[in-house]
């Protein structure tokens, strides 16, 4: 409901969340933890001190120090601890992470200890031969999402295969391999405890699968449903040298799409884009190289994908003569990357005095990457064949400036499965903070449908709505920011579109299907009839 006034708006902006049912038992258990806790105010201070103690030990790499380190770790850990040991391509240990009740994590990261609470990203640079692998670990509240092989199977994209293998001790274990493009992740799961004990990642380079790292997973106790959290991983971000990237892109048969230069504070920044793809999930996949960058004081450039397709983020790290393969969120996240001086930002449907103001839809704004765009805030990537002339780009920039500040530009996310003739030349701009990839795709497709409905081209609108329903299904499966009302609204528009085209019997058949299969449709139809929904909203 739209907030009526400031008070109701603040209540909506700071919503209360239901406390867990076992809050009291957790609170009581918490009070009896680490002996160092009572000395300090605040858990964070306590663990920061523990981190400080551990960090001190790390500076003195003696056996005694190691023992003290281990003791310090165990002091702050409760029984339910997961230890993840990271190894490089040669199997050398290069880092380890400890999960305390799944709520916080102490990570040994090149000698530094960082404490992260659940839901935060941890960034680790693991130097390997010729590669730097950056990890983002998103702590997942539901351990089953990671440790349950069935979940691993159903929530991970790509092609999944399964083998029963035997370890050197003659013990059988399940190995699940997920292959997506030139990346492969492998999860080894104990057949007896049903818990994962190793996780490997490989990258295909010049037709060879090369192991880029692995993790040994140690759990202090057998896995059960009460284990609070286990990490999900993004391992598919790899830094390679420019030369390697060039060989790599040649092996991938990627051809440069174009080169951009951005003038500004980081002058003579040059970026060459080799490949842009959009996966069926709607993920953007950009391969590019960058040269002539000064090192940046900003945070590390990473993309984050968890296997549920939610909560992406990109940050920035520049080393000269390096390149990145980035798989992640819309270009609103990439936008800071391209900033020399001013960020290019634009907002979709900017409310002006409370009324939404649409940007002109006739402007073709997707930049032909073969063009060189000078000035601040260039738009880096084109996903369709639409091109933007210099004059049109200038007009767009003026429009963006007129509309206001603090806006975000996003890439088009129309899936390649959508007939490119259905994709109109218009700009999709929105606040990236609000939605996941699938929501972005969903909104994009709804906007495409609206565009064609406005122009009475119902067949094209129908195609877009069909894709929108696929996107919302992905969002639902990935448990992102999926909302029932999105699905319900799209279904209604889709059925209406069919009826307007005279496809009455098809509309009736589809409606019957939705009534059977769509919880969202059931719920809202029941609400319309003032009945209780048959099922609870997840």
């Amino acid at each position, binding site marked *: *409901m*739209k*907030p*009526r*006034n*400031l*008070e109701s*708006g*603040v209540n*909506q*902006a*700071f*919503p*209360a*969340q239901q*406390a867990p049912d076992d*809050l*009291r038992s*957790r*609170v009581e258990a*918490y*009070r009896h933890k680490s002996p160092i806790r009572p000395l300090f*105010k*605040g*858990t*964070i*201070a306590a663990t*920061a001190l523990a981190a400080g103690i551990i960090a001190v030990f790390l500076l003195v790499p003696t056996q005694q120090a190691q023992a003290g380190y281990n003791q310090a770790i165990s002091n702050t850990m409760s029984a339910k601890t997961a230890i993840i040991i990271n190894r490089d391509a040669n199997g050398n240990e290069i880092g380890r992470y400890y999960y305390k009740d799944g*709520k*916080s994590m102490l990570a040994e990261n090149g000698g530094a200890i*960082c*404490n*992260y*609470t*659940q*839901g*935060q*990203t941890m*960034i680790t640079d693991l130097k390997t031969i010729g590669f730097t692998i950056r990890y983002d670990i998103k702590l997942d509240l539901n351990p089953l999402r990671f440790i349950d092989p069935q979940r691993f199977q159903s929530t991970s994209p790509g092609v999944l295969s399964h083998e029963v293998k035997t370890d050197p001790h003659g013990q059988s274990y399940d190995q699940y391999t997920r292959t997506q493009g030139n990346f492969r992740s492998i999860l080894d799961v104990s057949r007896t405890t049903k818990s994962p004990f190793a996780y490997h990642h490989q990258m295909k380079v010049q037709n060879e699968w090369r192991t880029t790292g692995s993790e040994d997973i140690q759990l202090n106790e057998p896995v059960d449903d009460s284990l609070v959290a286990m990490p999900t991983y993004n391992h598919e971000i790899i830094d390679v040298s420019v030369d390697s990237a060039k060989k790599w892109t040649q092996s991938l048969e990627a051809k440069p799409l174009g080169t951009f230069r951005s003038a500004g504070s980081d002058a003579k920044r040059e970026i060459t884009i080799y490949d842009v793809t959009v996966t069926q999930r709607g993920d953007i996949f950009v391969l590019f190289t960058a040269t002539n960058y000064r090192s940046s004081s900003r*945070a590390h450039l990473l993309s984050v994908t968890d296997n549920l397709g939610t*909560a992406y983020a990109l940050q920035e790290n520049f080393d000269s003569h390096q390149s990145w393969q980035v798989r992640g969120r819309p270009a609103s996240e990439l936008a800071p990357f391209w900033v020399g001086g001013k960020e290019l930002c634009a907002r*979709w*449907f900017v409310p002006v*005095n*409370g009324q939404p103001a649409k940007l002109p839809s006739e402007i073709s704004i997707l930049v032909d990457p073969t063009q060189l765009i000078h000035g601040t805030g260039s738009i880096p990537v084109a996903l369709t064949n639409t091109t933007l002339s210099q004059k049109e780009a200038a007009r767009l920039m003026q429009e963006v400036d007129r509309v*206001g500040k603090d806006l975000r530009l996003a890439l088009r996310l129309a899936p390649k499965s959508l007939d490119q003739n259905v994709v109109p030349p218009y700009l999709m701009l*929105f606040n990236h*903070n*609000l939605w996941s990839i699938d929501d972005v795709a969903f*909104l994009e497709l*709804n906007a495409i449908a*609206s565009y064609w409905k406005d122009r009475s081209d119902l067949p094209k609108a129908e195609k877009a709505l069909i894709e929108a329903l696929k996107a919302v299904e992905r969002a639902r499966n990935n448990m992102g*920011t999926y*909302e*029932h*009302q999105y699905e*319900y*609204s*799209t279904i209604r*528009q889709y059925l209406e579109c069919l009826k307007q085209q005279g496809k009455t019997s098809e509309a009736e058949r589809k409606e019957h299907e939705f009534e059977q299969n769509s919880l969202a449709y059931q719920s809202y139809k029941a609400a319309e009839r003032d009945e209780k929904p048959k099922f609870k909203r997840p």
Partner: protein
Amino acid sequence: MKDESLVQPGLLTCSLSEDFGEKVYSYLHQLYAFTIRRVGSPSLAEELVAETCHDAILCQRKLKGQDLKLWLFGIARRNIAYAYRDKKRRREISLSTPLVETHCDPSLTPEEVAIENESIMRLRELVLRLPGNQREALLLQYLEQLGQEEVAEVMGKSVQAVNSLQQRARNNLQRWGCDYFDNEFLGGKS
């Protein structure tokens, strides 16, 4: 609501301590709601609630005739402040942006829903931009529905100071948000 059994600090017995613990725990869900709205992270909120309960039970002698709920809110406020202060010292990169729940009219198009969501998020940003005391004075009024005297007790300030903080908070929100929100909306209660 005053807790009359606690008006004589110092007369602590084992049974009183246990009773006191039970009384503290009776506010557990309110403490959780208070905390989660300010920190966003459920796990951090749990930790801070536990910390608050722990501190309250340890320091029950300091409860001198005050309202227990407001006293607990005051402790929670302090622990939240510690947590934020500590967070600034550490290199943490937050991945999850807490999403605001909306309960939109299902007949709205996704674009319309997106606009509403955006306005709520924008308001949240403006409130978070307020100086700490102004923000807290406003949130205690709007979220916990406390009167000015109660807000004063939680914050350890005079009623006049609270009134001034709340007014300045509203003025700041009007000034910062006037290019986005209607003045009538930012004017507070209609």
